[in-house]
């Protein structure tokens, strides 16, 4: 963050500003195409029904966690607890959903309630969400360990069946990704209250001057984040068919990275649900793609597995750098 020295508005022509926005909006899609092209170049067979199914099998939980993160980011806050929360949900689901469904549902509803309380604390006490959610991340992780001290449990049949379903023509992860992206787009970008919710991130004072409650809007966004966190945990259990308290700790970083790649910004309420889903897919593909890249000068000719995380970090940096270049070129 640099100091914004000019207080008066930007002198940009409106045309340039919207062109820049279009370019930036196209960035997630462009990066997805580039990654797909790279995978196809090294291993054409991977771009197939089964290849995509395999490479993207974990993309749906990540995409849902990214959507949850994006909901929080829309209110200019950040959720560092989403990874632990998804792990908690997975443990609850794998342990109780089959035997004591009511208890499981109550616990998940409690999760949403805690998210709403967090919004209240953050807003009324005017404290940074990073610290509150970092504290909550320990809270969820601790609960998950209490529920499931050792890895195990079983996915409820309906979740396992859902995640193993093989729809005709389109691989399930792709189908779900489209559904999630479009669904959340309709919910937040096309609904009339969605405009108010996003307005809070853009200019909270203006929204409250029009008579809306900022607190309600923030609580609503955090509750949505809780809901999508739960969906993420459910699908994760469906894919992996058992649970472990630490199974989703990486999701916190991945969700922020995915949302940022998808065009979300930390201040100003700018979000893009479709972009966020694409961001999650890109990160997932970038990690899987490493297996296919042949690099002659490396031992074994392949990029080592441990660079998966690093590749995601670098991908994030490259995308952010591209964004900076776009806005510089337009000036």
């Amino acid at each position, binding site marked *: 963050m640099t100091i914004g020295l000019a207080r008066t508005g930007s002198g940009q022509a409106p045309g340039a500003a919207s062109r820049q926005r279009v370019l930036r909006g196209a960035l997630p899609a462009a990066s997805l195409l580039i990654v797909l092209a790279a995978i196809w170049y090294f291993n054409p067979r991977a771009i197939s029904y089964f290849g995509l199914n395999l490479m993207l099998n974990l993309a749906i939980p990540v995409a849902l966690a990214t959507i949850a993160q994006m909901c929080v980011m829309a209110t200019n806050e950040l959720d560092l607890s989403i990874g632990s929360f998804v792990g908690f949900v997975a443990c609850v689901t794998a342990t109780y959903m089959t035997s004591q469904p009511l208890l499981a549902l109550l616990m998940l509803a409690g999760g949403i309630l805690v998210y709403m309380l967090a919004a209240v604390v953050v807003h009324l006490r005017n404290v940074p969400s*990073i*610290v509150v959610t970092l504290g909550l991340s320990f809270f969820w992780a*601790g609960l998950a360990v209490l529920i499931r001290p050792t890895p195990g449990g079983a996915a409820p049949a309906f979740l396992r069946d859902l995640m193993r379903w093989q729809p005709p023509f389109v691989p399930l992860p792709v189908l779900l990704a489209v559904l999630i992206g479009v669904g959340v787009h309709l919910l937040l970008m096309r609904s009339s209250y969605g405009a108010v919710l996003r307005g809070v991130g853009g200019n909270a004072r203006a929204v409250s001057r029009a008579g809306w409650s900022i607190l309600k809007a923030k609580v609503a966004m955090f509750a949505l984040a809780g809901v999508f966190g739960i969906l993420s945990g459910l699908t994760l259990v469906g894919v992996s068919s058992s649970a472990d*308290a630490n199974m989703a700790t990486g999701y916190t970083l991945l969700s922020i990275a995915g949302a940022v790649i998808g065009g979300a910004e*930390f201040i100003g309420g700018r979000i893009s649900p479709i972009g966020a889903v694409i961001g999650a897919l890109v990160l997932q593909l970038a990690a899987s793609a490493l297996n296919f890249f042949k690099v002659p000068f490396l031992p074994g000719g392949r990029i080592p597995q441990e660079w998966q*995380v690093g590749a995601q970090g670098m991908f*994030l940096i490259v995308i952010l750098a591209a964004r900076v270049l776009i806005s510089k070129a337009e000036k």
Partner: protein
Amino acid sequence: MSDLALRPPGWKMPNLPVWSWSFLAALLVWVLSFTIAGQGAGGMLVAALSFSAFTVMVGLGQMFVITLGPGNVDLSIPATIGLASAVAMKVMGGQDGMIAVGLLAALGCGLLIGGFNYLLIRLLRIPPIVATLSASLIIQSVGISYGRGLQIKPPPALTDATFARLLGVPVLAIAAIVLSVIAAILLQRTIYGRTVLAAGQNMRAAHFAGLSVERARLLTYILSGGLAALCGALLAGFSGGSSLSMGREYLLSSIAVVVLGGTSVAGGRANVPGLWGGALFLFMVSTLLNTAGFGSGLRDVFTGLIIVAGIAITGTRQALR
């Protein structure tokens, strides 16, 4: 210790300074735990001082970063600890003669990471959270690929030093106290420190007062990286070798001790003694829960709740000001 309280000269003294609360809380939990255990008060204190030394070391860096103002936080600390400990162990190679070189190598690695963090913040114009986050993803990978199959024991002299005591006080704790005093002087009596405090209160005003805000930010991220690296190297000596997940708990605890110690999370006000109060308190709480027979799960739940409660309470105080 009250002369260390980092209030600008002229701050009105309340009945009790903010940082003393964390000490009182730590004291209370300490008394409670050895009462329950029925023994071991002294041993518990020594252990608390040793473990707190590490927390305070990273907490100092995190405190400077957080004091820079809203949005500033170093999320790359755990990855830095992991990588620096691996570097230290590899360079030392188990030989006593290489300890100094190994420490320097680890330190250098931390300074570089700090510089890299700042570079990302500045060049990509992204919030420090994302910058240190992306950096930590990369550092993790470097750490994994560098430290693969690494099972090098620390040099015996390093291990001995981390357990040594002077007049019953762990040498590590003494070193951390010295570092704390230096940090306090740095913060209050140098232009760099004043710039950090000023920028944390009002970045534009600091710039217009002619202070070099950006240089102070660079130095601060470098400082945080360096302290995390130093902590990593010593931690490897303390725990008999390096491991990449070694730093994991320090992300939360570095932020927690800063918050519990009375440093303003909104920036502009730092508190060195409070770090010690916060660190001792956190250790005592987990000891208490251990003594009472609670597992790690419940310990995490309580730690999380304490942090949320702490920030909610201090938040009110700021709002009342």
